[in-house]
């Protein structure tokens, strides 16, 4: 029971990284991409190949995975991002499937017994889930801070402008194509690093685990939490992972079929779109010209105190 809880926290972390990437693409820039499973796949394989085949340390594979998936994102992005939203979604879905197809074609079994990640002699093992949680959530926090800064910068606002109205964005001097490609590269890069952690945890890579379902799950997290709201996206990752492990958690995995949780993901998309398209947390508001310091802002947000203003 506790084990499953910890498992949920670990997977929520891994998926939160992916969801942060997807949020950059879909939530901020408004491009419906469905190939995050592909970036995940690339990241997982990068770690597996670098650590196992070449015997390099895990940390080394992290930036390499980010760069490779970012580059693949760029390759995918250049031809497809000129397309209108609905075409983009199909084209990326196809490309994500192609990545998996290639992986399966090369080696349908995948790779096993990848060496563990190591830090100052300490080995991160799936047996000690607590340290793994620290590891993964440290990186989620880093990604959160980096992408939050992005969303609140001039660049991030331009991305939102592209989402809201491409024509108006052009008239405001925004090179729409460049922003789209940039967002795609960033999103893909983060998605890739999520794959590294998944490999570091399971120590295996299987092509069959990078299906379209993964992309939809990640999309669900973004939609559920609130498109463009990073905190919401992480909350979404928790909820979706909770749903996915619920049968095991309550010990009913023999009664509840595996498809039940996936049907719920589908329902989440439909119901959220109809009832609350802005997601659970809604839009992330930023106070410009707020003279308060970080700690003042934080204490104003803490419960029990009266909130001032908006």
């Amino acid at each position: 029971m506790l084990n499953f809880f910890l498992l949920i926290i670990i997977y929520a972390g891994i998926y939160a990284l992916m969801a942060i990437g997807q949020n950059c693409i879909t939530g901020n820039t408004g491009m419906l991409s469905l190939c995050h499973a592909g970036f995940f796949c690339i990241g997982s394989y990068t770690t597996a190949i670098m650590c196992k085949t070449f015997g390099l340390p895990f940390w080394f594979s992290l930036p390499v995975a980010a760069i490779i998936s970012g580059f693949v994102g760029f390759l995918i992005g250049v031809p497809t991002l000129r397309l209108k939203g609905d075409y983009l979604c199909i084209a990326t879905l196809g490309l994500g499937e192609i990545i998996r197809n290639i992986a399966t074609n090369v080696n349908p079994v995948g790779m096993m017994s990848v060496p563990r990640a190591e830090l100052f002699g300490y080995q991160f093992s799936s047996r000690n889930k607590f340290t793994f949680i620290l590891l993964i959530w440290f990186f989620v926090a880093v990604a959160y801070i980096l992408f939050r800064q992005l969303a609140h910068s001039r660049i991030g606002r331009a991305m939102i402008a592209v989402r809201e109205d491409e024509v108006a964005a052009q008239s405001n001097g925004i090179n729409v194509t460049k922003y789209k490609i940039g967002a795609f590269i960033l999103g893909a890069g983060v998605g890739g690093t999520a794959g590294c952690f998944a490999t570091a945890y399971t120590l295996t890579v299987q092509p069959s685990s990078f299906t379209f379902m993964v992309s939809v799950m990640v999309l669900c997290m973004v939609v559920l939490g609130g498109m463009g709201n990073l905190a919401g996206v992480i909350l979404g990752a928790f909820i979706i992972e909770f749903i996915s492990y619920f049968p095991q958690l309550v010990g009913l995995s023999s009664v509840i079929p595996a498809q039940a949780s996936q049907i719920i993901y589908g329902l989440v998309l439909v119901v959220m779109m109809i009832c609350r398209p802005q997601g659970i947390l809604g839009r992330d508001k930023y106070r410009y010209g707020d003279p308060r310091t970080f700690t003042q802002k934080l204490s104003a947000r803490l419960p029990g105190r009266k909130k001032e203003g908006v």
Partner: protein
Amino acid sequence: MRILEAQEVTKAFGGVVAVNKVNFNVEQGLVNGLIGPNGAGKTTLFNQITGMDVPTSGKIIFDGNDITGLPAWKISRLGIARTFQNIRLYNDLTVVENVMMGLHFKVGSDPFHHRLAQAFRSYFNAGKENRELYTRALEWLEFFNLTHVKDEFARNLPYGNQRELEIARALASEPKILFLDEPAAGMNPAETEHLMKIINRIKEHGVTVVLIEHDMKLVMNICDNITVLSFGQKIAEGTPEEIKSNPLVIEAYLGREDD
């Protein structure tokens, strides 16, 4: 002085020639009107000039440079701002954020750095940049009396305010020319009156204005010169008085007498 010249601009959509060899001059510092019956090609001409579309043939000279066929984002960075016939605001951004978008390329850009380097600097200096953008955006909101709604989402503004906000956003980039596509459409007489005052104040600031409008009272009142399009061709240009008495214009609007 002519700040912008459209020379023999033609735009054909398949077999339909929407704009046919139109010469259109914009005089610096004045309010230039562009009028004509529905479907005369006014917005199409706007789109060619602002880079939303590429002309089939012809040239557009702005400030001595040929800008024909440049992408819209480059043209707007050169100093041509515009509004749209069917208001295009960033609905999920607040009012002040919309104006900040208008200021987007006024901050953090400098010619000595590569764009990517600028982006990095903007990323790390986000707080400082935001404060600067915010204060400058507030000044524009004050200019338009929109300060009280600065934190509203753009979608929640009343129609008249949305039109004003769109003008504020365009004006925030301190353009040399401001293109307004039917700014008074859907406004009531009081709002139109207010708009006229705003346009006059914009002119006083030294910004050249080009205006498509159907409201003749507004056009005749504030335009310094007027160009008339009909069926994609220029049929007249001159001062409001000349246009009022031009028989071709009257024919284009009212049809020929023997019809």
